[in-house]
């Protein structure tokens, strides 16, 4: 499997290096690669066809810009088209001028409606709204309980059918309005049962619920791992109940999420939110540009930045950069950095998100326990040693090794490596191409 579209193009472009313009044959070949990349990302076959013909058109006419290699040019076009198809801005929910605003969630079984309902409620609540969760999934055993537990966790009331009252989704939906009024809630989030789009009885029920709640936002919940079927699902739900938008769930996996593109392309409704993790906070507005990069396998820089911003402050970063540049980057700073970086998650994941990191590094299995050893070595040094490692002599070395439960060889290796990297940092920040101490690892 290819790691990224740019990786695929490399082979083609090395053959035609030196030419400023793409021939028709080149474009055909590139188009095939793009098709393959998109299909592997689960974009629907028909959507891919349309998409490719648009790319071909633009690529044929395009002057290759001076600043870009043909490869970059094509990738830029593909990326731009992807962003354009996915929707160029982040879309928000429509608010009903006359409350309550009703958000109705629908989708297949297991797409993540109940979880998405609770996550959305939490997000809206944090924005100062007063949501009410409505448990209209009376099909799956314990679905109501699940929503109640989640509601309690985020401190949002949940309306559900009590014993004795009618046990059907339409009645629950109807009575929910009174409850919203009684509790003074201005947003109603209706969780419906999962259903296959060809299950007529359940689709009729969904239509009946829609007619009662008249959703301000009818959102389809789609699993990011969905394959070619995404198109059929989206079209069928759109025809039955009319959709205003989409919630894409489980994007914290490694699926490329081509379903997002398929759905947007066939029903034309924007993706509004994405579910990004297991906890109820893991829910964000959708960013088309990030999704485009992901579909192309291009490294999710923006998400990395967000993670970085959560772990570092800008001042910290500035200070670090300053130190690196001036070559005053000490082992203390390194320890600090290491802890910050670890806060962002497993190192391996971070490397995957960084663009332009060579394959050798990206694929490298980074053993997190090794980080512990490095940390132990540094922590076994005195403050003076950390500031200026050159004072470390033989006896200090063996003391450090003993203190950290490592060997003097390891201590040596660390010190030596640190020195090299220190120099590398310095030259990197001076704009020189860094020379990494491992052969075959140029950094772009």
């Amino acid at each position, binding site marked *: 499997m290819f790691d990224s579209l740019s990786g695929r193009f490399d082979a083609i472009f090395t053959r035609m290096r030196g030419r400023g313009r793409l021939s028709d044959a080149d474009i055909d070949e590139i188009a095939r690669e793009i098709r393959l990349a998109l299909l592997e990302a689960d974009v629907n*076959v028909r959507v891919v066809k349309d998409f490719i013909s648009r790319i071909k058109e633009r690529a044929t006419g395009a002057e290759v810009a001076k600043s870009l290699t043909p490869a970059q040019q094509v990738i830029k076009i593909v990326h731009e088209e992807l962003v354009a198809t996915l929707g160029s801005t982040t879309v928000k929910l429509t608010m009903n001028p006359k409350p309550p605003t009703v958000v109705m969630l629908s989708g297949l079984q*297991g797409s993540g409606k109940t979880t998405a309902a609770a996550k959305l409620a939490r997000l809206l609540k944090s924005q100062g709204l007063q949501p009410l969760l409505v448990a209209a999934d009376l099909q799956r055993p314990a679905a109501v309980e699940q929503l109640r537990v989640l509601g309690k966790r985020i401190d949002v009331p949940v309306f559900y059918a*009590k014993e004795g009252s009618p046990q059907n989704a339409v009645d629950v939906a109807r009575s929910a309005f009174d409850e919203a009024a009684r509790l003074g809630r201005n947003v109603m989030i209706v969780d419906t049962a999962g259903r296959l789009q060809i299950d007529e009885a359940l689709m009729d029920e969904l239509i009946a619920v829609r007619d009662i709640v008249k959703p301000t936002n009818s959102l389809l919940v789609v699993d990011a791992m969905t394959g070619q079927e995404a198109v059929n699902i989206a079209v069928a739900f759109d025809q039955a109940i009319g959709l205003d938008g989409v919630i894409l769930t489980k994007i914290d996996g490694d699926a490329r999420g081509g379903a997002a593109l398929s759905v947007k392309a066939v029903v034309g409704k924007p993706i509004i939110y994405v579910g990004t993790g297991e906890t109820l906070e893991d829910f964000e507005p959708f960013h088309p540009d990030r999704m485009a990069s992901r579909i192309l396998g291009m490294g999710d820089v923006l998400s990395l930045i967000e993670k970085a911003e959560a772990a570092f402050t800008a001042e910290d970063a500035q200070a670090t950069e300053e130190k690196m540049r001036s070559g005053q980057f000490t082992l203390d700073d390194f320890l600090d950095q290491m802890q910050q970086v670890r806060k962002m998650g497993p190192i391996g994941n971070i490397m995957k998100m960084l663009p332009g990191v060579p394959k050798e590094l990206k694929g490298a299995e980074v053993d997190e326990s090794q980080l512990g050893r490095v940390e132990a070595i540094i922590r076994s040094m005195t403050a003076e040693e950390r500031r200026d490692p050159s004072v470390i002599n033989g006896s200090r070395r063996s003391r450090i090794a003993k203190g950290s439960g490592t060997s003097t060889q390891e201590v040596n290796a660390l010190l030596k490596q640190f020195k090299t990297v220190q120099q590398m940092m310095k030259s990197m920040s001076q704009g020189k191409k860094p020379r990494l101490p491992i052969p075959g690892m140029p950094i772009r």
Partner: protein
Amino acid sequence: MSNLLLVLIVVLVAAAAVALVVIGYRLAIARRSQSALLAPPETKTPINAQEVEPDPDQAIISPPVELKEGGTDTGLDSKEELEEALRAEATRAEATKAEATKAEATKAEPLRLRDRLGRTRAAFAGALAGVSGRSSMDDEAWESLEEALISADVGVSTATRLVEAVRASAKAAKIKDGSEVEGLLRREIALLLSPADRTLQMAVSGPTVWMFVGVNGVGKTTTIAKLATREGAAGRHVVLAAADTFRAAAAEQLGIWAERSGATLVRGDEGADPGSVVFNAMASANSRGADLVLVDTAGRLHTKVNLMEELKKLRRIVDKTPDSLTEVILVLDATTGQNGLTQAREFAAAVEVTGVALTKLDGTAKGGIVLAIQSELGIPVKIVGVGEGPEDLIPFDPEEFAAALFGE
């Protein structure tokens, strides 16, 4: 030793890159918002601003350990309330059961894949009509055959390989007729799937354990419920181990099914260590002389290292009763695309998956990814789920599956 060096470099490169990126990004934002102010009114500045200033708490990733904690609140106010909820469920269950029996009465024959896939075929026939009606195959026809396979989530490489193989044999046998070509392709697919033992194995002595794993929302609990019903009806004493202590009300869901099928439920509190649940379930099965333990695990993405480690631990606990674990079933949703192969690979690496349960095959999704899973990893489909009723579980038949891929 070289690993240590690698780690060091990786950390520093990451740190440096992160630092530089953050600074560069800040500058870019400053520039962007400046130019946004100067830009014509149709560029929506507020949205831009919102986009670049992400809510800090949205990006925070809590350390993995905490994921499983903080769940002590069961969410149900009192015992009575829980009982009330369960009673309500039971009433509903009765209704469903009654309906199910009614449905069964009208349809006495046992369900087969073919019956359930009828709708699928109808929906799909249009796409292939072009090929089967052809008297000769041109490039376009071959391409549409390949596209049909890709549409069924078979995946580009498997589809290409299949079509090329058929193309070669069609040429050798001088077959030109579209419907004959289709027949060839069907046989090729069935062949790819054929050599496999699809029976769910029982332990030679003592309780048998089947463990169910998979990503979130694929239908693990429902599949277990169906099996519990089937095996219970066959006279086996079934223990259900509710080792999904993470998802809210997952144990309740399984409990309702236990009640319906007469199985014994072993559960822990929400947020409890799933290992303890499995341990207790094994102890209970051993002491009661139960025949079968079905272990329901929490849905987890195969990319979450800590959760995959937890799964390995569960397996180790079961393995303490030697030779009891005969099946580790990966539950896979038929709508899953190419990621299904990665899922299978990762779960297999972690807990040695023995078979696949393909769920939700009663929709229009084809589940073509199981072709790749069997041909590349050698893991066969053992169970097919086609509905929500307890009896909607059917054996997998390669011939019928192949036919369904083409809508026949």
